[in-house]
């Protein structure tokens, strides 16, 4: 493994991950947290020789090799492909309203305890900040969003729950997230959105893109029911025209 190198103004180190994958891990502060997700997106759409899978998070880019490919060959192939990617100009982000009903979040007690805020104060602060879709992952249609002030961060559960229903919104570590499908959940569920974020039979399996911005808008449970029956269109949710 070659150790460390610099790519597009980002410091990275290379580590093995099992016998068939490598991790490119950021060692600098996340001045632009979307660098690895954007690189991962481009790599995933045109995978270089010997690479069979790519997963990108803010801090690590995982590159998995075909059976029989050595980690050294995988590293050379990945770095060569990444080196050819020129700096990607920032795409003008789309902005959306994110309607959320906070009335039946199962994990408010934990969130209130960790933040030392009651839920009304927490919700008020949450609505003040823009949230940015930073990563795909976990399951199709799950959206990781950054932008939570540190005061609103909340630890992941020590024992993940068996099931969060589709449309659950939750806080885990520094992220705000939407569960697009019903799946096990290690995050703290604080409410529900009528937005459908998962279209797993399509590619990408969600209508939302990395870099999209969201503004949380509190709604009542009556509105939640109504919007579930009559889901808003993407254009109805846009707040930037």
């Amino acid at each position, binding site marked *: 493994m070659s150790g460390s190198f610099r790519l597009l103004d980002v410091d990275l180190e290379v*580590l093995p*991950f*099992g*016998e*068939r*994958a490598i*991790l490119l891990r950021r060692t600098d502060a996340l001045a632009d947290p979307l660098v690895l997700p954007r690189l*991962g*997106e481009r*790599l*995933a759409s045109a*995978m270089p020789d010997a690479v*069979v*899978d*790519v*997963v*990108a*998070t*803010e*801090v*690590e*880019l*995982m590159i*998995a090799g075909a*059976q029989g490919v050595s980690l050294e060959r995988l590293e050379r192939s990945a770095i060569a492909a990444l080196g050819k990617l020129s700096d990607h100009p920032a795409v003008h982000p789309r902005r959306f309203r994110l309607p959320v009903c906070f009335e039946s979040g199962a994990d408010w007690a934990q969130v209130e305890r960790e933040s030392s805020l009651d839920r009304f104060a927490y919700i008020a602060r949450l609505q003040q900040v823009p949230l940015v879709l930073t*990563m*795909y*992952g*976990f*399951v*199709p*249609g*799950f959206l*990781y969003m950054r932008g939570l002030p540190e005061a609103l*961060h909340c*630890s*992941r*559960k*020590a*024992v*993940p729950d*068996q099931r969060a229903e589709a449309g659950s919104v939750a806080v*885990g*570590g*520094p*992220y705000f997230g939407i569960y697009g*499908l*019903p*799946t*096990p959940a*290690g995050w703290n569920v604080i409410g529900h959105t009528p937005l459908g974020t*998962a279209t*797993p*039979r399509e*590619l*990408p*399996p*969600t209508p939302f893109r990395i870099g999209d911005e969201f503004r949380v808008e509190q709604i009542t449970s009556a509105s939640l029911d109504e919007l579930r029956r009559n889901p808003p269109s993407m254009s109805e949710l846009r707040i930037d025209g």
Partner: protein
Amino acid sequence: MAEIEVIHPGVRSLVQDDGRPGLAFYGIPASGHLDPDAAHRANRVLGNPVSSPLIECHLVAPKLRFRDQVDFAVSGADFGWALDSVPVERDRMLSAASGSVLTGAGATNGARGYVAIRGRLDCRFDHASAATYGYAGLGGVEGRPLLKGDILRVLLPEAAAAGTNPGARPSVAAIEARIGILPGPEWHLLTDDAHRELLSASFSISMNSDRMGARLEGPALAIRPASRMATVPLLPGTVQVPGSGAPIVVLADGQTTGGYPRVAILPRGELSKFCQLLPGRAFGFRQL
């Protein structure tokens, strides 16, 4: 076209193939067989392409009626398979007359087995694979495990049967009780005592497990606090340890990212062996 009726689906029987690698960036796991060697063996003896969709059975065998004559094979764990109450061997091409019924019982020396039909199973392909990924409703039969009353259809080949040697089946003794692991990126978050415990203690797979992840029962491992760790990539075979200390092994339908420490990883061959461990069966880990 031949038809197969699902009289009883067993515990969880579902269509699988070699899966859909290459989409993990979007959160879509590769899915696919939990014991690829066994699945390929069943297809090979029938002369099918090794990646042909077939039925993966978990823990308890399904009961299937072959409405039309077909050739078929069973492989993997010993489910005590019988055709019209006559025991049949694994890893051989077998002939089923119209109306015959395939039965089995609980798996005894493994957890997963395969039923392959000579020809091509008619099932749903999503992202170029028939592998069932239940959480997102992809693949197989309407994206879900088999249900009582399902009718599976198989396009029969025109040419006569030309199966090949299946290759050696691992002996029962090879379903090892010690599973090899490599240290993971967060290996250092386990205390020294927890390292020793991970490599010496006895664990078992909880019944509270599925194709997404195997939750382990055994001693709680002491792990340094990482409850606000950044989200990181995962691969099938990753051993995560949340704050509770109870390890979870990511499997073929597993999530592609997570925020629990990745203390170890099972290489591919070890993961297949692990997936053949029956829930409740004691096993240990060894460092590779």
